[in-house]
């Protein structure tokens, strides 16, 4: 399978990365090189093979459903590019 420039632009939109026309053209070639490389997997017989979901056989650890952390809003917003009263500030999203 290979991608065209329109598909690259659509995927970039899904990934929320702005790409210029030139970048989209260049990336189309690069992505097709990678997709061409992974095509080798078509040679492998995967009939009846289960997908690997965990490399280590371990039952998922569980913990009490309790509050163990919190009351640190100021710390949480400390690295935000814009914040006010411990809220993250973003461009207006509702009219």
């Amino acid at each position, binding site marked *: 399978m290979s991608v065209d420039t329109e598909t690259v632009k659509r995927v970039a939109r899904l990934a929320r990365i702005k790409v210029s026309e030139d970048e989209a053209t260049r990336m189309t070639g690069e992505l097709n090189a990678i997709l061409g490389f992974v095509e080798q997997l078509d040679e492998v017989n995967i009939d009846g093979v289960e997908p690997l979901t965990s490399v280590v056989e371990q039952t998922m650890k569980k913990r009490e459903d309790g509050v163990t952390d919190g009351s640190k809003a100021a710390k949480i917003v400390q690295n935000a590019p814009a914040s006010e009263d411990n809220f993250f500030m*973003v461009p207006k999203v509702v009219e």
Partner: protein
Amino acid sequence: MTDLTKLTIADARDGLKNKDYTSLELTDAFLGNIEKANDKLNAYVAVTADKARNMAKASDEKLGNGTGGALEGIPLGVKDLFATEGVHTQACSHILDGFKPTYESTVTANLWADGAVMLGKLNMDEFAMGSSNETSYYGNVINPWRKAGSNQELVPGGSSGGSASAVAAHLCMGATATDTGGSIRQPAAFTGTVGIKPTYGRCSRWGTVAFASSLDQAGPIAQTVRDSAILLKSMASVDPKDTTSVDLPVPDYEAAIGQSVKGLKIGIPAEYRMDGMPEEINTLWQKGIDWLKDAGAEIVDIAMPHTKYALPAYYIVAPAEASSNLARYDGVRYGLRVPGKDIVDMYENTRAEGFGDEVKRRILIGTYVLSAGYYDAYYLKAQKVRTLIKRDFDLAWENGVDAILTPATPSAAFGVADQDLHSDPVKMYLNDIFTVTVNMAGLPGIAVPAGLDNSGLPLGLQLIGKPFDEATLFQIGQVIEDAAGRFEPDNWWG
């Protein structure tokens, strides 16, 4: 007076205990080396001199009253991927501009609890994506090694290139690193240092910037096998904050060093003999086989038929996980924000400016393979191939193999801005051909320097072990180190 920065961690541990020198003297010696070398090697992106001296003074006090920990007073470098409280932590990406975490990663917290001293944060490929440390927002790291009679700048490998370069040039005693497809072992091999990626689940991933969560593992890069055993013992832990951290006590890895390898069964997989591989790599591999045979190990041929599919499967799984993990960089909660006409425009501008080309490529591949209609053809298939890769290893262990010996990399270090490697992203990816199988199966792997090539550059061998059997890798690794000797680059950097 001896050059304190040439000491191993094991030596310094004794010297500090005997009061031959103080941690402050040791720390100052390293800070001096960094100051002289960093503009040439670019290994550090942040040097925390004041913090280092304060930590060293505290260590000297503890050493004085006999309450020192396992790494008391030992100066280390930390890869920029680990969250360090109040200190530069940006995964060497523009998008994390100015980020200073309000918390400490479990791995580094373990090191400080054992008394280690932090010298600063080490350069790396952006978000650990790269094999040459040429994707960092903070510029290329330079390998202290050069070809004999040449001034050409060589890459230190990646993504832990800063860690490897700093250890090889004595800008720290040891360093933390991480490995998703070979990012500890490949740079270790390129710089004549020792690097171990432990079993998935051995080191907590909490507080380490995520790349591909099912593959990422932290581990050390150090000068010797023993030093890497000492560091891993402190880095590893059982951590309730990471559900994939495994509930197994951390053994005393150092105890395995010096034990005989007599009777151990070492598997040699013919599938790691790649077309076009330099003859020197084959010769080195054969040398490794002979050394282990001479030490009494039993050498057996094993079959790993799915080896060649590990790298293509990786380039589906890792980008898929990365595209999901890196969705959090949106210009809202931390790091860079580039304004836009509305919130979506702001996201798109921020991510366009904040991520470098290699990171963008991988996010786009990952987004594509996970997008509607392609999931089964790519991601699900790759996860099934992953099962087969793991099964190859499981069969070897079932047949009594104790460890597997392979080359660490298909070549020695290459030049900065190598045109051939940069002409096609896949060519660069092939650097990880021998290491990536280990991540796909979640196993431990160690790279140990084993010789120099014709041009005088270091080459490494890799040992792959059973899950949570890092001890055997240190045991066998020491035999290789004893036979091969240790390798030092000529100092041209000051």
